[in-house]
């Protein structure tokens, strides 16, 4: 699960790159970059959850 979360994070980065290449207007770019950051945040959250889950399993 941690690895899955870490794999999602580059997807958010590529979304931000796509915003630069696809949208000429600043507002659209900003919105898309924020979406990319949100995807990275989701990936980080999944990775943290995976870390917590792995630690709990290790205890049992």
């Amino acid at each position, binding site marked *: 699960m941690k690895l899955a979360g870490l794999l999602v994070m580059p997807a958010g980065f590529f979304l931000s790159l796509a915003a630069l*290449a696809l949208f000429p207007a600043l507002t659209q770019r900003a919105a898309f970059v924020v979406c990319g950051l949100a995807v990275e945040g989701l990936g980080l959250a999944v990775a943290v959850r995976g870390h917590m889950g792995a630690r709990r399993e290790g205890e049992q």
Partner: protein
Amino acid sequence: MNPPMPLSDPLFALALALLLLAPLALAGVALVNTGLGRSRSAAQAMLGSLAMVSVAALAFAVAGVALAGGPNDASYTVQLAGKSWNWLGASPLLLGGFGLAGPQQQLAVLFEFLAVAMAALLPWGSGADRWRLPAGCAAAAVTGTLVFPLVAHWTWGGGWLAQLGANFGLGAGFVDGGGAGAAHVLGGVSALALVWIAGPRRGKFPREGLATALPGHNVVYVLFGCLVALVGWLGWNLAGAVIWLHTPLYGLPAVALNTLLAAAGALAATFAVTRIRFGKPDASLCANGWLAGLVTSCACAGIARPWEAIMVGLVAGAGTPLLVELMELALSIDDPSGAIAVHAAGGLWGLLAAGFLAPQAGQLVAQLVGIAALLGVALPLVYLLFWLLDKAIPFRVDPDGERIGMDLHELGGGAYPDFVIHRDESYK
């Protein structure tokens, strides 16, 4: 950011002198890391700090500096969507051509050497009391050879982040005058990757109940380290302002003032938050708050006005103790030095604040793209490299070594041979 101008001799001499002060930031962080660790690992912590700096500098000299490159050097560039995307430097290996470079470029390389040392040093504090010295050196070599040069090229070497302004009209491009991203966020996310791979210290998270408090062994080291770090940070931010932001001489006092005010605001906020949360101010968390203020100043000291620097510091200082507590109690992350909260989160906040404070249109978007690159590329890349490294050179010391302490286990002698080291209750 001012347009680049050739450095005059006095400005070159000043920037060089400031860069010679900057290693005090490394010394301060090393003292803080050592003080926040345990007494039975203090010598290993301090020797490790020297080793991290040395290995990272050597690795950067051998190969890293070639990949980091400079704005006018050869590079690997891709044409995409009608724009030029500069991904990686292609300068000569082994510092070839350094003597022929102009004064600006020579100062830039020296600055990058200090930044790579900081990026390699930060995870060492997070791995205190369990990270083996050979594994730490290997990780520093990876940071100095591959990871830092990539980020440094994007930020300072004329890479695609630096070109966001010219290519896409986003302000002045990604701005990071003091290394908040390339040194601190990178070091902080490396610390997170390390903590995930090495795991917590024995006894930190018992099977039942809350996390065990494992307080640092010498809070005087920690607080003195903060004062030493201030001197280093002043040199660091002022030199960065001259080299990367092209700040003129008359603009430098404001940069120094902003650095001090950001740290002071952060300390005041952490003092208040810990006083409210625990009834008394917490010395080690206050030290973390102070450092977080310094880290945020790396990004915005050259841009902000003094009252803005105070506000940025206040937010950093208020958030740091809460984040440290959240990571320890809720997220099961054992980070003895607090590098993740202080350097990663503080650096990200500073970069974001610089976007809000900069006068140019589109600067905030440029900063957001830079943050997306640091989080979306650096963290997964560092985790992957460290995970592979852990298979070759195990990061974590064996349980017996952790029980007797890293000093005896790795160095054969303690930092305080005249002291009777108390028995640790967590090993019952």
